[in-house]
């Protein structure tokens, strides 16, 4: 019998359902001391706080939800949605102050930037929305052969928008960035580039608003996006004296074109013009979001805002923006914890430069394959993109006929999300072309960002890194919005 009792006792100890020894020790009650929750921020987006309901019996014994909260604003006691409410918002949606040092540039020792963008948004009814935006861009470079100050005023997104059911119509200056890949999406055919700071900024900051009529129509998981550019505007270019100008008068080079003594002489003496007249064309994009993957198809007959410099008599270099045709497809899916993105595009009527400096046209094939993942499922994000660009011509041209490379970004947060470290990079496979952009940011002082960053360029002639290899930059900046 003793054996039986012993066996029973041992069994009970081993029995998982009554594992009394696994019960954690009681928690110290002092950990529940209420703290002081600051009041909600005053913002146009601020949610309306709830009126505490008189139901003390229902509250948990230790604390009520609002014991140390500020008194909420009044609201209806009936549990109903607020419904449509007119919206009037305004603010500074971007403010950048940045000081930079150019250790190797003959043009300047320092390069500083001021960028401010303000907006007003009014939505008087469910259907209508009005937005007005303006921006100011100031650049100053000093301490070299080309000291230069520049201040530009421009419109931001300024439009009238109409919504009805699954339809959205927008008319006015707007920033439209199509595509799936980061940095250089192929489907990005209707945006206006901003080259005033070359590629120092993220993609969204390298685009500007331009006049467009846009029709967005949803059909379940599908969306049709039609854009017409009634009045074309080329990319916002920096002054030719800027270190970020696509024409370098000191070295006599044009970005993307093989350097030569003849070209150098031409660039040094030529007058620089821009031809922006006329319409920008139109484009259609059909996208689907949902099972089993997201995809898009793009058809465009547009003028690209990035200039092609045509050599004219005079001599002069005229920035032109010829129409070209684009057919593209893209998709995005998640598999095994990885996000795969791909874009494929065919572009017709791409301007190229013959050895005689005369302009010719050809077509190109482009491909981007991107992979985004979070190693170990943690806070670090890696986005790796492979790119391929091939001009389909047998003629001798001054541009690179083929370019194969990789670019992307690695970013991580630490210090409870108060710090961010990031590295943007790009490299060529078939040519030496290097860009490295490390950045360390303090974002704990919300919504402000303080950062120190570097931009390193290196490469062969005709590559972007090669063109700017003397313009590696170290910066200290503040970015905010309010």
């Amino acid at each position: 019998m003793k054996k039986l009792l012993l066996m029973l006792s041992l069994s009970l100890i081993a029995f998982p359902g009554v594992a009394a020894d696994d019960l954690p020790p009681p928690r110290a009650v002092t950990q529940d001391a209420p703290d002081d929750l600051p009041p909600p921020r005053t913002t146009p987006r601020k949610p309306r706080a709830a009126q505490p309901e008189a139901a003390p019996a229902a509250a948990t014994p230790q604390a009520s939800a609002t014991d140390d909260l500020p008194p909420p604003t009044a609201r209806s006691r009936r549990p109903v949605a607020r419904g449509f409410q007119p919206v009037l918002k305004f603010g500074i949606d971007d403010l950048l102050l940045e000081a930079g040092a150019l250790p190797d540039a003959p043009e300047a020792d320092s390069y500083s930037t001021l960028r401010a963008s303000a907006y007003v948004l009014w939505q008087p009814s469910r259907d209508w929305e009005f937005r007005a935006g303006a921006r100011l861009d100031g650049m100053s470079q000093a301490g070299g052969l080309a000291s230069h100050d520049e201040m530009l005023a421009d419109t931001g997104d300024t439009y009238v928008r109409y919504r009805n059911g699954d339809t959205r119509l927008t008319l006015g200056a707007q920033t439209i960035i199509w595509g799936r890949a980061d940095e250089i999406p192929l489907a990005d055919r209707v945006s206006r580039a901003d080259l005033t700071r070359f590629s120092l900024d993220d993609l969204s900051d390298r685009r500007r608003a331009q006049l467009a009529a846009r029709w967005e129509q949803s059909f379940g998981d599908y969306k049709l996006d039609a854009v017409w550019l009634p009045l074309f505007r080329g990319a916002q270019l920096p002054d030719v004296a800027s270190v970020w100008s696509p024409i370098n008068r000191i070295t006599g080079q044009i970005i993307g074109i093989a350097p030569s003594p003849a070209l150098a002489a031409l660039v040094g003496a030529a007058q620089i013009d821009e031809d922006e007249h006329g319409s920008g064309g139109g484009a259609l994009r059909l996208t689907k979001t949902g099972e089993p993957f997201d995809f898009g198809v793009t058809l465009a007959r547009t003028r690209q805002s990035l200039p092609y410099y045509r050599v004219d008599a005079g001599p002069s270099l005229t920035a032109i923006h010829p129409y070209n045709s684009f057919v593209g497809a893209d998709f995005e899916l998640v598999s095994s914890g990885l996000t795969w993105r791909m874009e494929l595009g065919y572009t017709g009527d791409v301007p190229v430069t013959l050895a005689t400096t005369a302009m010719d046209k050809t077509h190109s094939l482009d491909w981007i394959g991107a992979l985004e993942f979070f190693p170990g499922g943690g806070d670090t994000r890696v986005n790796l993109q492979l790119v391929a660009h091939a001009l389909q011509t047998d003629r001798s041209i001054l541009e690179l006929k083929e370019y194969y490379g990789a670019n992307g970004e690695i970013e991580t947060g630490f210090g409870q999300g108060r710090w961010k470290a990031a590295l943007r990079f790009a490299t060529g496979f078939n040519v030496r072309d290097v860009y490295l952009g490390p950045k360390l940011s303090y974002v704990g002082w919300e919504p402000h960002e303080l950062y120190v960053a570097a931009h390193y360029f290196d490469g062969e002639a005709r590559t972007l890194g090669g063109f700017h290899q003397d313009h590696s930059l170290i910066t200290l900046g503040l970015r905010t919005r309010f």
Partner: protein
Amino acid sequence: MSFTPLLPLVRFLLLALLLGAASAQADEASDLAQKVYDRPNGRDLTTLGRMVLTEKGRAPRIREIVTYRLDKSGGETANLIRFLDPEDIAGTGLLSIDKADGSTDQWLYLPALDRVRRISSDRKGGRFVGSDLYFEDLQERKPSKDRHRLLGKQTENGLLCEVLESVPLDPKESVYSRRISWVDPDTAIPQRVDYFEKDPASPSKRWLLRGKKRNQDYWTLTDSRMIDLESGHETRMVVDAALYDQRLPAKLFTSQALADESLESEYRP
């Protein structure tokens, strides 16, 4: 009289009894986990709230958010989260579709690019906007993904709670090696959850319920906090307003609504 001839039979009966009891206990534990999962929460729910990130000696950081949840047919649940403040993340949205098979589709809306991006939901251990909440904490974990057992009863928040241990059946499916929950059996509401990661003996994080409130016959967890027990960093989640069963339309949980804040804003409480 000797018991010797009967001993094998008695042993067999005791073993059967114990196994039966163990099975019953396991069932009871699973039932409790299921009860917590099935706690009435409305067909749809909209909340306005704040997430407060606090560290000793530093000013708190506050995120204001609106969330929408819709239980769809076929066991699918859709969630939309929109950040309202601070300004540097305002407008950012996250759309999650938790499917019946346990998988999740997720899309992130980035206002600066005006672009909807599909993202992997496997980023379970990533911190949600720098908080103490992992992305996994935002997902509704089906009870069938864990093995449950009852550890006993203990008082928490002044309530006598069932203490429930949950261990992932597939360790790769979760950041946590196990979770221990203190569940009020009357309401099926956890009062406290301890999360274990690498160290099986010491929890790395602790979730505590601070307040709940009855809204439209449903319990709303109006105030809770997640504590990083190593750093002392804490994320407090306050629900300022909650609205149940307002018949949220399914089109609110599409990429179009994710990319256009005005489509959902009129459903806010």
